């Protein structure tokens, strides 16, 4: 396949009105250092239209797969009822769950195979769900809307769980008692402030949330709003340490320049 070179105009990039239209004129090097493969792809996409188009197709494909995995399981719901549809959805995501009244968990094995026994439990709502590390997202919650008895939800390390997902959790406000949000890279304060609907919440795990800037303050504010909830994974003085170090370094530098 012929690779078409983009014309690189360094100074006139902004003014390219009639010239080889710059797709990525707004390009600048990304803020965080990338691994070698990404750096190579980035360099190639800056210079060749084909590579850029391939990369945009691959990101479109990734979004399409996500949408497909989180689609609404309407056929299963019609045939077997809400509970089995929710169960099937969780198993397809490679998560685990436990029916209420049962004690064993249903999970797929390492190869992704799971037993189809869950089809027999049409009358049992789901009580505990563990979808850690899966690609569950906000639209996928449509499958779990009917599970009004949900008590435990574990979302450890789910990379697609974001603030919009948390804003939808109010559907479980009467029943949810344990929520584990550790390691979700997309959650920020905007979503955590929507958790005040969950009145029955008793345990909340907020460890390692990279986008929450002052976790200690957020913990205090959440404890104010959810008085019966025990929040783990974050200490009160997290987020304060940086300020203390700044003050120390300021003090050092001022003594340095003053003297």
């Amino acid at each position, binding site marked *: 396949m012929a690779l078409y070179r983009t014309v690189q105009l360094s100074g006139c990039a902004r003014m390219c009105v*009639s*010239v080889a239209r710059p797709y990525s004129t*707004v390009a600048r090097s990304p803020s965080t250092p990338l691994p070698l493969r990404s750096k190579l792809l980035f360099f190639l996409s800056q210079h060749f239209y084909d590579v850029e188009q391939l990369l945009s197709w691959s990101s479109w494909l990734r979004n399409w797969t996500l949408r497909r995995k989180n689609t609404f399981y309407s056929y299963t719901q019609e045939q077997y009822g809400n509970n089995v549809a929710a169960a099937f959805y969780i198993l397809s995501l490679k998560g685990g769950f436990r029916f209420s009244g049962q004690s064993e968990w249903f999970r797929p094995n390492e190869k992704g195979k799971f037993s189809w026994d869950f089809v027999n439990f049409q009358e049992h709502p789901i009580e505990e769900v563990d979808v850690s590390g899966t690609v569950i997202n906000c639209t996928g919650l449509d499958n779990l809307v009917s599970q009004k008895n949900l008590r435990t939800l574990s979302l450890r390390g789910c990379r697609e769980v974001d*603030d919009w997902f948390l*804003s939808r959790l*109010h559907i479980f406000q009467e029943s949810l008692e344990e929520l584990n949000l550790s390691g979700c890279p997309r959650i920020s304060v*905007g979503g955590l402030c929507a958790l005040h609907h969950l009145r029955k919440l008793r345990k909340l795990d907020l460890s390692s949330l990279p986008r929450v800037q002052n976790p200690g303050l957020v913990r205090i504010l959440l404890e*104010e709003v959810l008085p019966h909830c025990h929040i783990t994974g974050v200490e009160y003085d997290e987020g304060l340490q940086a300020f203390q170090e700044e003050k120390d370094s300021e003090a050092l530098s001022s003594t340095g320049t003053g003297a």
Partner: protein
Amino acid sequence: VRFDDNRVEVTKEIHAVRAMPGSDWQPLEITPGLPPERADVVIVGGGVVGWSVAYWLKRKERIRDGVRVLVVEKDPTYSQASTVLSVGGIRQQFSLPENIHLSLASAEFLRSINEHLGVLNEDPVDLQFNHSGYLFIASEKGAGIMEENYRTQRYAGAKVTLLSPAQVKEKFPWLNTEGVALASYGLENEGWFDPWSLLNALRRKAISMGVYQCFGEVTGFRYSTHSMPTDDSHQMSFKRIRYVNVRMPNSLEYQPVECAIVVNAAGAHSGKVADLAGIGSGPKDTLAAVPVPVEPRKRYVYVLHCPDGPGLDTPFLIDYSGVYCRREGLGGNYIAGLSPEEEEEPDTRDLEVDYNFFQDRIWPLLAHRVPAFECTKVASAWAGYYDYNTFDQNCILGLHPLVNNMYFATGFSGHGLQQSPAAGRALAELILDGGFRTLDLSALGFERIFHQEPVLERSIV
């Protein structure tokens, strides 16, 4: 001397490279920042609505570079633009179904904003969306209307719930429920976000798709007029805009941009832009004499600091007196405001803030509703313009009947930011597909203005 010869050769080489095909080097200096000489669609106004239209036009074009779009913005610093001075809330609690659908579709867009506006190898868009919901409070008088609105909203798909005063007191103990008969609380897709991030994301993506941006002021249109007789032999004259005169900042130089379609998304100044096209200057008692009823209205926004104020669960509170208040950040800061009555509308010549307005009008009402705000301090304040539709305070989306190629996306009266993605899509569908495809917003066109049938929205803030 040899050194000089070498230097001269090197400079010549640079010139030669610059003059090769594909280069924009010209022997005569041209002013930087001039818009192109012709464009298919010229969008007047570079706010969130203008860039949303530009983005959707590029997204819907069937072939690459099928539509050449130019966005003309008067002020590169956006110092007086309504978008960036907006409080940034989005809600679905309207009484008109079209407004609810516009808002819902925009929330849907914002939810998957990185799919729509993600540019390759750029940082993902971070809107800082706070999902805190809106809480509307109604007195005895307004309870009936609130219940009707609730039914309309649920039917349209908004996730809203009604709360009794006891439930309000239980959920929000810091609220004084005296005089409260009913409250309406949005559970999903409601809250507030950073308008500047949305504007920049739309702009970045649109520019990466090939939209031209020009900083200049539209000072006039060159149009051709043709008349046609009506059934009862009245002569109606129709205009078609041929050139848009874009004047460069701090200069008298202007560039006439030849265009096929003009979109008026100029926000508070849409009325002036429409006047430039001659709308509203016809003989009295004819259609040509009806101006576009959009004018700027100044609104004050105050930032309050109250250390004992409501906590993380503060919704965007809107009282039946019109006072609104929301949390800002985590440090005990709040944003409050009130739309003044018709009689006490402030002067729109500048954006100076009147602090007495807070002391006299807002603070008593706010302190009555939220007792914690009795000891609050005004940390700062700003003012911004609403592109106020004086006719019925709802947006005007559509083609003007008398100017054959001028589309309007204006008159949002304070809801421009929250309705911009869906309104942009609707206008792009009108332009490229000839009619609305996803949302039927024909009730928000110009016909209602000419027939003098206002489509009223009952819950304006």
